C-alpha cells in the first residue's frame, strides 16, 4: 500500500511500483484521470499495478470492466473524447488485438477527424514481452502493431525512474499513448524514485552509457541484456554506447544518429520478431541518413521470425547477452 500513501518517505521501488506511484500521483493531481480494466479494482491488477488505488480513490476512479477488450478500448476512447483522462489496462500484450480497432480508427484519429474539435487523451497500459514463464499469449512483444499508426505515441520504459516519469508524461499528453511495460523487469531491481510529479519528455531517447566503438540501441526489457553486453564488451576493450529508445514513436532519431556518427557502428536489439520489427525502422533511418558514418553494416539482434514459444523454450527465443556481444563484435570486426 506504501506506493499510494501520500506522504510516504521516499523508498527504493521497482518498476511496477513506479507505475503505481505515477498513477496515484496523477489521480491525486487531476480528477479527470481514471483507471479502468479487468481486475484493476479491489484486486489491484494481475500484476498489482493498481494495488491500493481502489482503496484510495474508490470505484468511481478505479473501474473494473466487463471481460472484453473491445469494451475497454471503446469506453476509453468515448470517455477521453468527453473530457476524461482514462488510463486503460490491457491485462497482457496478447489481449491487445481486440483494442486495435478503437485505438487506431478512433483514438488516433479523433483530433484529426474533427479538425481539433474532439481529442483523445487516453493511455493504454500494456504489460509487454516474454520471459516470465507465463502461459500462452502472455509474452508478446507486439509494439509493431502501433508504430506505423499516425497519431499515437508508443512508449516503453525500462527503469523505475523512467517508468514513473514517462507514465506521468503519457497521462498528461493530450493525445493517445500506448504505454508498454516490460513485465520481465517489473520487479527486477529497485531504485529511488521521488514522488515529485516530474514527468520525463516523450520525445527523447535516453543514452544510458557513453561509448565510442559501437552503439547498442534497444528498449524495454532488453535494456538489461544490452547493458550486460556492454559490460562484457568493455572487458574485451570494446566501448559500447547504450541507448534506450523509450519512446518508439515519434522517434528521436537525432540521438541515435549522433551516437552512430561517433561510433560508426550500430546493433539494434529487440525481442519482437525481426522482420518488420521496429528495429527495421531504425536501421532504415541509418541507411538513409547515416550511411556515410557507418563503418560496418547495421546488425539486428531480435526475436526470431516465429512466435515466442511456451516457456520451456522461451529464453532461447529472446535476445541474449551472448547474441548481442557476438553482433557487436561482428560490427567491430567489419570495419
Amino acid at each position, binding site marked *: 500500500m506504501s506506493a499510494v500513501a501520500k506522504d510516504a518517505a521516499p523508498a527504493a521501488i521497482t518498476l511496477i511500483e513506479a507505475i503505481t506511484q505515477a498513477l496515484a500521483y496523477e489521480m491525486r493531481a487531476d480528477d479527470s484521470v481514471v483507471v479502468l480494466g479487468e481486475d484493476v479494482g479491489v484486486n489491484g491488477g494481475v500484476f498489482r499495478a493498481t494495488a491500493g488505488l481502489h482503496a484510495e480513490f474508490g470505484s468511481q476512479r478505479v473501474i473494473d470492466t466487463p471481460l472484453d477488450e473491445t469494451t475497454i478500448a471503446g469506453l476509453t476512447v468515448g470517455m477521453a473524447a468527453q473530457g476524461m483522462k482514462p488510463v486503460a489496462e490491457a491485462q497482457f500484450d496478447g489481449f491487445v488485438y481486440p483494442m486495435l480497432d478503437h485505438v487506431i480508427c478512433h483514438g488516433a484519429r479523433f483530433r484529426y477527424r*474533427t479538425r481539433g474539435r474532439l481529442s483523445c487523451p487516453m493511455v493504454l497500459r500494456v504489460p509487454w514481452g516474454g520471459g516470465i514463464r507465463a502461459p500462452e499469449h502472455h509474452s508478446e512483444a507486439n509494439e509493431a502493431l502501433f508504430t506505423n499508426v499516425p497519431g499515437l505515441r508508443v512508449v516503453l520504459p525500462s527503469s523505475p525512474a523512467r517508468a514513473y516519469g514517462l507514465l506521468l508524461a503519457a497521462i498528461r499528453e493530450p493525445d493517445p499513448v500506448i504505454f508498454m511495460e516490460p513485465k520481465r523487469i517489473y520487479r527486477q531491481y529497485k531504485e529511488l524514485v521521488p514522488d515529485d510529479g516530474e514527468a520525463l519528455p516523450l520525445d527523447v531517447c535516453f543514452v544510458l552509457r557513453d561509448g565510442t566503438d559501437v552503439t547498442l540501441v534497444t528498449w524495454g526489457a532488453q535494456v538489461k541484456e544490452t547493458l550486460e553486453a556492454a559490460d562484457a564488451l568493455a572487458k574485451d576493450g570494446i566501448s559500447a554506447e547504450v541507448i534506450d529508445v523509450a519512446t518508439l514513436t515519434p522517434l528521436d532519431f537525432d540521438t541515435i544518429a549522433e551516437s552512430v556518427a561517433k561510433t560508426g557502428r550500430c546493433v539494434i536489439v529487440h525481442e519482437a520478431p525481426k522482420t518488420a520489427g521496429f528495429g527495421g525502422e531504425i536501421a532504415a533511418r541509418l541507411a538513409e541518413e547515416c550511411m556515410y558514418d557507418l563503418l560496418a553494416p547495421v546488425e539486428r539482434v531480435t526475436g526470431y521470425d516465429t512466435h515466442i514459444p511456451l516457456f520451456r523454450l522461451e529464453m532461447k527465443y529472446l535476445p541474449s547477452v551472448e547474441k548481442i556481444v557476438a553482433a557487436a563484435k561482428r560490427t567491430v570486426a567489419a570495419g
Partner: protein
Amino acid sequence: MTVAATFEIEYLQYLGPDGTLVAELPPQAPSAADILPLFKQMLLVRTFDAKAIALQRTGKLGTYAACLGHEATHVGIGASMRPEDVFAPSYREYGAQFMRGVKPRDVLMYWGGDERGNDFSGPKHDFPWCVPIATQCLHAAGAALAFKLRGEDRVAVTCCGDGGSSKTDTYAAINSAGAYALPFIQCIINNGWAISVPRKAQTGAKTLAQKGLAGGLHCLQVDGNDLFAVLEGMRRAMERARSGGGGSVIEFMTYRLHDHTTADDARRYRDEAEVKDGWTRDPMTRLRTWLTAQGVWDEAQEKAWIEECGQMVDVEINAYLESKVQPVEAMFDYLYADPPADLLAQRAAAIALEKRS
C-alpha cells in the same frame, strides 16, 4: 418447470400508414401544433437528401448515404435530446443532427471529402460521423460512463442499423451500459437492409430490440415511421436514463427507400415490389394526412415550405461548393496537439512540393 427469467418486449405504434390513429396517443404526446415543426423538419431533411443525391449524381459530391424514409426516426430522436446530451451517430442520421445544430453544409463537406465537415456546427461534444459500423455505440457508452462518474444529468444516445446490431461493438455497448447502469440509449434503426444483406440474414433473433436483453437493458420496438411512436419510445428511454434507471435499446422499424449509398445499386439484390411496399409506410405521408386532418397543414403551406426548404438547402450547397480545399498542411496540423519534429519536417516538405508544382 422452474423459470429462471421471463421477458416481454412491447411494440409501439400510434399513427398507422394511412394517417389515422391505430391506438390512443400517449398522454405525453405533443399536440398537433407541436408536431408541426417536426413535420416541417422532416420535409427539410427530405429536401436536403434529394439535393445531396443530385449533387453526387452530377459529380459534385462523393459517395453519399441517403436517409430517404428514415425521417420520422431521425427527427424524432433529435427532438428527444437536449443540447447537453451527447449524440453518437452512424453516417446517416442527419435528421437528428440538424435538430442539434449541425448544418447541411457540414454533411456535404464530410461526404465531399473534407474533414472540416466533422468540425460541425452542432454541439461541440457530439461525436463525428462514424464509418466503422457500430463503433460509435461504445463511444456513447464511454460518454455515458463519463456522465455517470461526473454526476452529470446527461444522456448518451447512439444509433446503429439492423446490420450494425450484429456488430460486436453494439453488444459491448449494451453490456457495459447494463453493467454500469448508464444513461444510455441504443437506437437500432432497422431499415430492413445492410447494403445487400436483408434483416433476416443478420440474426436469428425475432426482434432486434431483444439484443438489449443480453445486457439487461430495457427493450422496446417501435414503428420508426410513426413520429408519435418514435417520440414516445425515446421519451420513455430518456426518462429512465435521467432518473438513474439505466439504459435502453429501441428498435425503430423503418425502411430504406433509397440505395444504401450513391455507390450502391439496390436493384442487384432487392425487389422493386418490396420498395413499392415500403413507400406505403412512408413516414411523411401518414403524418401529412394526420396533420391535414387536424387542420394545421394544407397543400399550399406544404408547397410554400418546400420552396423555402429548397432555398435554405441551396444556400448550404453553395457554401459547400464555394469552400476552398484545405491547404496541404492541413493533413499534418490536426494530428497531434504537439506535433513531433519529424512530422513538421514532412509538413515543410509537403508545402515546398506544393509551391513547386
